[in-house]
């Protein structure tokens, strides 16, 4: 079945596309509604990755989830990175393009970690200008994802949910809501996850991420290396009834299991989506 880029990703479950599963997916395409991948993995000039993604793209709706743009950095935007991103977007025409509400480099120093922004008026002005810039170059709206954080900044007076809501209002971007990140932050900093969710504009939430975490000492860490935890499934059920069904991704990046495990998790998400009493937007 071929898929036109104008067709939106359905409000069903998809899985992250990882190289360990390439062969299996090509030989026996799994029964999932869509797939998501990191565009940076396809920045190369040729070779097997691009050919494989073309084949997969012909069978599944695709979403791009960027990790390397350092959207919140106060350095100038990396135009080379952005040009490469535009190039793979033009080639594969994903339904969604997302990035993180975070920064990972400054002054030419790269930490390659999704670091949280302090939620201040200055950060808000800055991130909105950057999102505007990226959306102008890409000629499409961006989805921004809430990240896990393992610190609090000394000055961060705006609640994170309100910060995201205002970013959406000013830029017209959408939200990729990562519920595992919401749960991990809530546990690590004794926050109420529902307060955060209540601040988000429901209509801007276009995609959901579900993943597993690991425990390092006192911290829950968003490793994407486990099955989705029952507490996160509970949060997901609540959110889908509150916001309506949304395209939902099972993210798994480390400690990679067989493809069948990801498909089982996607089936579980589909069961919850199917039971939603609120209609999809």
């Amino acid at each position, binding site marked *: 079945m071929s898929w036109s880029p104008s067709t939106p990703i359905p409000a069903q479950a998809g899985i992250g596309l990882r190289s360990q599963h390439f062969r299996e997916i090509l030989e026996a395409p799994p029964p999932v509604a869509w797939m998501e991948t990191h565009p940076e993995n396809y920045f190369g000039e040729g*070779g097997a990755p691009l050919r494989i993604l073309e084949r997969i793209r012909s069978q599944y709706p695709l979403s791009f989830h960027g990790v390397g743009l350092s959207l919140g950095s106060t350095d100038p935007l990396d135009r080379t990175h952005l040009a490469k991103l535009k190039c793979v977007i033009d080639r594969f025409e994903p339904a969604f393009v997302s990035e993180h509400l975070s920064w990972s480099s400054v002054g030419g120093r790269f930490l390659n970690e999704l670091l949280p922004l302090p939620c201040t008026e200055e950060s808000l002005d800055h991130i909105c200008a950057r999102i505007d810039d990226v959306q102008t170059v890409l000629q499409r709206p961006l989805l921004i994802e809430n990240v896990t954080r393992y610190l609090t*900044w000394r000055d961060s007076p705006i609640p994170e949910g309100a910060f995201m809501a205002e970013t959406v209002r000013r830029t017209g971007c959408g939200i990729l809501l990562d519920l595992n990140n919401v749960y991990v932050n809530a546990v690590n900093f004794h926050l109420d996850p529902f307060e955060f969710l209540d601040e988000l504009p429901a209509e801007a939430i276009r995609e959901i991420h579900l993943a597993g975490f690991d425990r390092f000492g006192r911290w829950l860490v968003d490793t994407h290396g486990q099955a989705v935890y029952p507490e996160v499934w509970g949060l997901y059920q609540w959110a889908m009834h509150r916001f309506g069904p949304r395209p939902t991704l099972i993210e798994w990046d480390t400690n990679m299991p067989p493809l069948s495990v990801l498909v089982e998790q996607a089936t579980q998400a589909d069961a919850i989506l199917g039971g939603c009493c609120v209609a999809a937007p």
Partner: protein
Amino acid sequence: MLRLREIQEVFAEGMTAGSYRAMADALPSDGSALRSVALYRRLIRTNYTQVLRITYPLLARLVGERFFSLCARGYHARYPSTSGDLFAYGRHFPQWLLELDGVRLLVQLARLEWACHEVHQADDTRAPAVERAEAGAWADPSSVRFRVNRATRLLACTVPIYRVWHALQADTDGGGYDGGAEPNPVPEETGLLVVRAAGTVQVVGLSPEQFLLLHAMRDGKTVAQVERMAAELVPADQGASLLAMLLEEPTRSAFSLEVDP
């Protein structure tokens, strides 16, 4: 209250220089920040180690997890990341091993793995003149030159790295690379050809004569020059088979032909 730029700079400085004091003004003073900083250092270190492990899976297997992790830390201190895209992060790892006065085997295995990594995603295009050249390639061998394709690397080596590479491949899923058949018994290992052929990265162990010929081809020698070299390198009755090897896959995928104007 620090500006956003200052917050990012002191945090990055603290992370890279290992100094908590640098970032203290940006973080709460209740003591929680120390645990946060320690966790971020660990996460960042783990990320970079994982990138190197993906790029150098056989080297990691050979030296073991603990030693590889130590190498990854040392490497990052000397060659920190310079991009949001981590594809090229491990580029200098062979050089770093060399600077360490590392065992030659490790340095050369790292060079081979980096070549595989680059070739895996290198440009597919062959030299544009190939079709025209192939049509009349052998009409005038002195006017037809070899051009190396972009998904090709030729490596000199002084230790039997091909055998090591092949032996380590046997226990892995191949990582998208084709280990090929058991290595031929080559008397002296002189070089390796890394080439993408039929969609997979392939590594070919080369005899000294094969290496010299491929080296000449990479340098843009003409077909006639390569034929003469082959005749000088081996007895006349073996010259044809040496040249035939160059025209068979996977070696054939490494080169295009170009007619001199």
